[in-house]
């Protein structure tokens, strides 16, 4: 068929019939901005960024949906197009939190805080886990303008965190429909759709059903194609942009799907499809499960042996000697029971070991829940009965397949696994194995294909690749057939392995037929979210002890997005609290201790009020409590009270959670006879709160927003500057400045006021543990002198603070803070009642 010739911005280009103008432009090397367009999706024309002018065509057609025609004269850039695109961008941003994009302090802030804050709601780029990969942000930054003429409309949709594996925040959605389109492309009947219309239009499900019941298979393609932070992988989201993507395959069932392993700092964080195609789709376990298995907190880390009923951790050589000696003594009476979720090389070496020891060998298949009749576990080989009759006296166990009762009949038990087994304490030797993406090898799919597994994730502790463990045991036992130098030699030695039986379920189409176990371990025990799909677990949420003693939560509500007010019954704290002091909270006995400034209190009713911003695990745990719940601990009041004296004119600045913190200071300073000017700062107008309360105890209230939607455009520092100029014009002076907010904000204030020679106080927020001066975690340097923020602070002379040291110490546990977030069972127990409540959504 002949080609179509057209010109784009004066450049002649020839394309195949059926090609779009956008494709022709790309062929001609002309860049046209796009958002809803995606190479794996058919044209949609929603975002209207790709508009062009075509000679003889009225208006501004979208190039992505316009077929190229012979002789077309296309212009992709003109003043009209620029102006229209700018307006389109503004409209899109008015429905997408954008304060960081227009903030005058963006560069400074981001150089000091390169990692996004782990907030519940992403009310700005700095709170968004997709910051490094966001198409909207990239486009807005490339456009370079900080001039937005439309207001920000925060939709205030509920956060959707009740489904397994994915967090959804439709307040960030720009309705490009990529998620819906990819879902339809891969699954035919999409699990989501665009519902409602006009300004209420959004992505959702029929009757707001949970995704577990809307037909979703949790393949994650919507997450991977979303240009914004709306859809995120709950586990991977806060690690940041993956630093490597490696082709590999999935060992979790005989399907052996090909996938792309995403790693960050040498750790697997997710696995994605090799292409946005139906045939390439992954099941929930393949997409989300693998990373959670390898990162499980229960992983076996060190080799151990048991002597005289006592277990010791030992070095590898000692452990391997013990293993080999034990096996040697039982040669001819050894059984080997391993999982099908092993590589060909591992199975080959196990088979050779069995032959060398003249023992029995069986591979336990991976099965979904359904084919297993109630009460009957995984099908095990018949020869296991020989343990009782004494024909088998030693067992090599490569998974959680053995009952404790049967293990008692064994004389020697060697466990080779990466996760603890039920008979762990009965084992004579335990060898920690690398799992899944932690070791290389090959697998054969049920369809007969051979796929390679890449070793891309660092095994924890001293865990070693299983093939190396086996080879070393073989060497210790002098089995010549097990002498291999490299893994490739093992692979080459495999000549006749048959493909495994196909998996009796369709996990990629039906989320209720996922494999129930991995190496005999109940998957829902390792990944609690899987129990939402009916996978069995030994975990029983009803056994969770709900505290009946402790401090009652009298009130809890989200004041503004991501900022929560908690009023707690703590009469002793309320009776003794002074402005500037703080408390340490523990939601439950096992929680981390987390410090919060007292925003208000009432000695008469014995209640204290705190403003808590959701920025990590502890704050999330606290804000997830319901009214009437009891907090395990409230310690306080802690820290030094702010020195309230009559100074004259005092300027207070509060940003974000600090707005709440300046209320008691303003009240006390005003009562002491000061002229109090309070300045509150929010990223955007819709994030401001307590304006009336603070105005009532101040002589003047000023507002600053980072996007200029209210008050002064900028932060408290811009307002401080304005106030100083005004006071100087009137021959007056500022006698004291106090700032409470994020470290960046307080540092900016400190730098601003240093040359002014006005005493400036900031409330420092280092990592804190006990809050009573014992642990030293909250150490800060003030005028080169070490102070403890908990007992000497929290208020210090801003001009003496070593800010770099503070920032460094605050970031010390960045990775642990991320790891603490999604792996805990606590968060899943918070999640399940909600899922159960939603039911099928039919309202019946």
């Amino acid at each position, binding site marked *: 068929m002949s080609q179509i010739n057209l010109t784009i911005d004066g450049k002649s280009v020839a394309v195949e019939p059926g090609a779009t103008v956008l494709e022709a432009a790309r062929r001609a090397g002309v860049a046209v901005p796009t958002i809803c367009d995606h190479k794996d999706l058919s044209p949609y024309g929603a975002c209207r960024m790709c508009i062009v002018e075509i000679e003889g065509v009225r208006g501004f057609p979208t190039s992505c949906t316009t077929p190229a025609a012979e002789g077309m004269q296309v212009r992709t850039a003109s003043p009209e197009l620029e102006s229209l695109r700018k307006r389109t961008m503004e409209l899109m941003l008015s429905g997408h939190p954008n304060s960081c994009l227009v903030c005058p302090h963006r560069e400074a802030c981001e150089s000091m805080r390169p990692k996004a804050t782990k907030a519940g709601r992403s009310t700005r780029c700095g709170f968004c886990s997709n910051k490094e990969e966001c198409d909207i942000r990239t486009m807005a930054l490339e456009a370079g303008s900080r001039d937005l003429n439309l207001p920000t409309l925060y939709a205030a949709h509920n956060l959707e965190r009740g489904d397994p594996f994915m967090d959804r925040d439709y307040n960030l959605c720009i309705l490009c429909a990529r998620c819906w389109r990819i879902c*339809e492309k891969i699954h*035919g*009947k*999409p*699990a*989501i*759709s*665009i*519902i*409602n*219309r006009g300004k209420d239009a959004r992505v*959702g*499900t*029929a*009757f707001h059903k949970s995704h577990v019941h*809307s*037909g979703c298979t949790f393949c994650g393609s919507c997450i991977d194609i979303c240009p914004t932070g709306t859809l995120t992988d709950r586990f991977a989201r806060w690690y940041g942009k993956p630093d490597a993507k490696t082709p590999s395959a999935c060992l979790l069932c005989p399907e052996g799907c090909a996938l792309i392993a995403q790693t960050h700092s040498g750790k697997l964080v997710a696995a994605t499809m090799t292409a946005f195609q139906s045939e390439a789709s992954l099941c929930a376990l393949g997409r989300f499960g693998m990373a959670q298995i390898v990162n499980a907190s229960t992983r076996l880390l060190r080799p151990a042996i048991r002597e005289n009923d006592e277990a010791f951790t030992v070095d590898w050589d000692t452990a391997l000697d013990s293993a080999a000696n034990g096996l040697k003594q039982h040669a001819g009476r050894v059984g080997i029971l391993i999982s099908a979720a092993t590589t060909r090389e591992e199975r080959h070496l196990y088979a050779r070991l069995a032959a060398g020891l003249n023992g029995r060998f069986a591979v336990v298949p991976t099965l979904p829940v359904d084919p297993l009749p109630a009460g009957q576990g995984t099908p095990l080989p018949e020869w296991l009965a020989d343990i009782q009759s004494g024909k088998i006296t030693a067992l090599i166990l490569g998974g959680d397949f053995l009952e404790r009762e049967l293990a008692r009949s064994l004389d020697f038990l060697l466990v080779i696994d990466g996760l603890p087994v039920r008979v762990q304490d009965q084992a004579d030797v335990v060898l920690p194995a690398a799992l899944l993406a932690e070791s290389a090898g090959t697998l054969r799919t049920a369809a007969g294909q051979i796929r390679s597994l890449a070793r891309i994730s660092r095994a924890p502790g001293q865990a070693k690749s299983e093939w190396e463990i086996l080879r070393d045991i073989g060497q210790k036992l002098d089995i010549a057939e097990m002498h291999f130098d490299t893994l490739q030699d093992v692979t080459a030695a495999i000549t006749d392995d048959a493909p495994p039986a196909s998996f009796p379920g369709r996990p990629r189409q039906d989320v209720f037929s996922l494999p129930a176990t991995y190496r005999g371990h109940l998957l829902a025990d390792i990944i609690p979210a899987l129990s939402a799909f009916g996978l069995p677990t030994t975990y029983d949420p009803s056994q969770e002890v709900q505290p009946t003693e402790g401090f009652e939560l009298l009130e809890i509500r989200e004041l503004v997005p991501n900022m929560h007010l908690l009023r707690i019954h703590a009469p002793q704290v309320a009776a003794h609290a002074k402005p500037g002091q703080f408390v340490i909270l523990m939601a439950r006995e096992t929680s981390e201790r987390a410090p919060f400034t007292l925003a208000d209190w009432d000695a008469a009713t014995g209640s204290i009020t705190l403003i808590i911003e959701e920025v990590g695990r502890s704050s999330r745990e606290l804000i997830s409590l319901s009214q009437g719940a009891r907090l395990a601990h409230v310690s306080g009041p802690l820290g030094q009270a702010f020195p309230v004296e009559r100074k004259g004119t005092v300027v207070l600045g509060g940003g974000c959670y600090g707005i709440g913190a300046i209320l008691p200071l303003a009240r006390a300073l005003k009562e002491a006879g000061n002229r109090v000017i309070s300045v509150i700062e929010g990223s955007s107008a819709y994030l401001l709160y307590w304006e009336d309360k603070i105005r009532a105890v101040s002589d003047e209230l000023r507002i600053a927003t980072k996007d200029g939607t209210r008050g002064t455009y900028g932060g408290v520092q811009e307002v401080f500057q304005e106030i100083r100029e005004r006071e100087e014009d009137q021959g007056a002076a500022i006698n004291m400045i106090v700032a409470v907010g994020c470290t960046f904000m307080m540092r900016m204030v400190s730098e601003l006021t240093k040359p002014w020679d006005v005493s400036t106080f900031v409330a420092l927020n280092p990592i804190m543990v006990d809050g009573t001066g014992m642990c030293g975690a909250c150490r800060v340097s003030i005028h080169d002198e070490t102070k403890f923020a908990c007992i000497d602070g929290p208020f210090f002379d801003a001009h003496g603070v070593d800010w770099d040291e503070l920032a460094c110490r605050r970031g010390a546990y960045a990775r642990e803070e991320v790891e603490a977030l999604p792996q805990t069972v606590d968060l899943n127990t918070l999640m399940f009642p909600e899922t159960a409540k939603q039911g099928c*959504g*039919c*309202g019946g």
Partner: protein
Amino acid sequence: MATTQRTKIAKLDMTEIFENHGRSRDNLIPLLQEIQEHLDYLPPEAISRVADHLGLSENDVYGVATFYAQFRFHPPGRHRIKVCQGTACHVRGGGMVLDAISRKIGIVPGETSPDGNFSLERVACFGSCALPPVVVVDDTVYGRMTARKTEKLIEGLE
């Protein structure tokens, strides 16, 4: 849900409606309209059966249905309250009237009160633009309403 509604759904044999329509996608809106004509609203079962009949995702069927103002997803209450949000009513405080009713009954537009007494709808214009703001209860038009007056009106209906 009122008992009468439950009976109605149980009794309705949707088979006939489905038999009269082919399985191509262009039957979607006529099907939804006919079902609503019989049931007065579209319950989740209806959306799901329409999806099955046409081989579509029920999410997509729901997406289409929620696009059109004519479709309801809650059984109408014994009293149907419609509040005009057209231009004339808007400028004379129709929004405040709607909010007041919403607060009084405890439901948002599109919903029916749990006791089945009231359903609340927002309407673009009744053509009674000389009487803004306008509230229509069942088939009676009430003009020049205020929040207080509508509250009294609802109390009278209970």
